[in-house]
């Protein structure tokens, strides 16, 4: 599903990731842990195609991300969902409009979009707030809407960068459970977090990064 071969990334001459090799199988739940600045977000961005690697190869569903043309990157992104710590919702749009956006981009019909949005919102327990503006939602609700937007396209991979970073402990557990249920349906999850509770709750494979080095992983692929 996801394979990294000796990937290195620099930012302004500073090493962000060094010689990372790993393999993530379909349906796995992988938790990227490590202190701030360890390279967790960079690793997610590399897989997402936001930044190219300076060295090494990244294969996502057998496609080499490093060799993707700039025009192909949006299509690569459509195969995955991305959830961020700071939600990234359009505040003046309704919950429905926010979640439907990836479907408009794909050019789905109104009927199909409505069905998929309702399904995604039901999965995150937000189907009763379809017409509510995103700006009036609580933090937990906003993150649920973000997750709905990430899964509305039925992605094979779901990337999450500190998705519980802005939430209180109770909401954190709720969101962790939500990710677990999504993973249980077969979606591969790669989540960056330094929250111990989330790591314990998710009970997935743990990759530990420190100063750009992969320190611990049972499934290191060399």
């Amino acid at each position, binding site marked *: 599903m996801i394979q990294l071969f000796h990937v290195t990334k620099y930012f302004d001459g500073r090493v962000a990731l060094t010689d990372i090799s790993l393999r993530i199988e379909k349906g796995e739940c992988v938790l990227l842990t490590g202190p701030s600045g360890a390279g967790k977000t960079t690793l997610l961005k590399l897989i997402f*195609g*936001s*930044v*190219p690697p300076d060295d090494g190869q990244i294969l996502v569903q057998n496609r080499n991300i490093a060799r993707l043309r*700039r*025009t192909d*990157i*949006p*299509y*690569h*992104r*459509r195969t995955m969902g*991305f959830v*961020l710590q700071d939600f*990234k*919702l*359009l505040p003046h749009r309704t919950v429905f409009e926010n979640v439907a*956006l*990836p479907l*408009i*981009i*794909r*050019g*789905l*019909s*109104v009927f199909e*979009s409505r069905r998929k949005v309702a399904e995604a919102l039901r999965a995150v327990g937000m189907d009763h707030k379809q017409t509510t503006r995103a700006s009036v939602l609580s933090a937990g609700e906003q993150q649920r809407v973000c997750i709905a*937007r990430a899964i509305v*396209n039925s992605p094979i991979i779901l990337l999450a960068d500190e998705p519980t970073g802005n939430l209180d402990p109770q909401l954190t557990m709720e969101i962790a459970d939500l990710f677990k249920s999504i993973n249980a349906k077969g979606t591969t999850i790669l989540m960056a977090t330094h929250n111990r509770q989330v790591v314990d709750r998710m009970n997935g494979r743990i990759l530990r990064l420190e100063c750009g080095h992969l320190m611990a992983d049972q499934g290191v692929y060399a």
Partner: protein
Amino acid sequence: MRRVWYFIREAIISIRTHRTGTLIGILTTAFTLTSFGVFLLLYHNVNNLLDRIQHNIQIIVYPKEGLEPAKLDEMKQFLKSNQIVESLIFISKQQALEDFKKQFPNEIHLLEGLPDNPFPSSFILTLTSSTPSTDVTAHLMNRLHDHQDIERVKYNRDWIERLTLIVTYLQWGALIIGGILATASMAIIANTVQLAFYTRQEEMEILRLIGATRLFISIPYLIEGALLGALGGGLAIGFLRSGFAVFKHRIESLSVIGGFSSAFEFFPVPFSLTLLVGGIVLGCMGTLATMLGWMKLR
């Protein structure tokens, strides 16, 4: 279809959000196109006037004194054979004298005491309606001057040439000033769109995050630029129309050039459409100029 609706809606939302910037963009485009349109109007009308004057311009050919009727007939055939001569009238010495008496009855005393009729006979040539170029006319003039039986030729060529030169200057002036103003307008539209870009940076980031192509993200901005340009173009046509109506009204009241006022006209529909399309092109180019830098992002 849904995407099209989305693009239009996004463009309208952006215009409504950035009202001041949009208004400045529309007014700048309108100002640019109005200035360009003034030159276009001037060029169009001077050209019209030139056409009309050239059509009415006559060449007067004076044959040598005492030519036999056969020779005069020969000259008539020679003049008629020229392609740019549409019609020809022969005025005999006697007829010239009669015409003088009719036109200037108070000056008849000037002729008293003269032994003979002092007026020469002449041919009055009218040129074809399709305005001949100055080169063709000059060629005809040379041929007339070289003719052995022709005494003198009267034709106010310099004046026509000067007018033609003015039209050429106007053409170049419209091009240069239009170019400068168009660049300024493009820069201001680019700024307007850039402002919209900055305020919606986060939104674009979200769109990229969920797999929107750069074209998908850009289309609403292109529509915004085109709308802005079209509105500016429409406004410019409005300004020009009302300005021209006032100008024509004033001209008609002036008796000196009142006779020419019918020659002044607002430019035809294709010219107006050119201004409108020009506005749209300016708007789109302004947007593209802003987006080219942003397009480089991965």
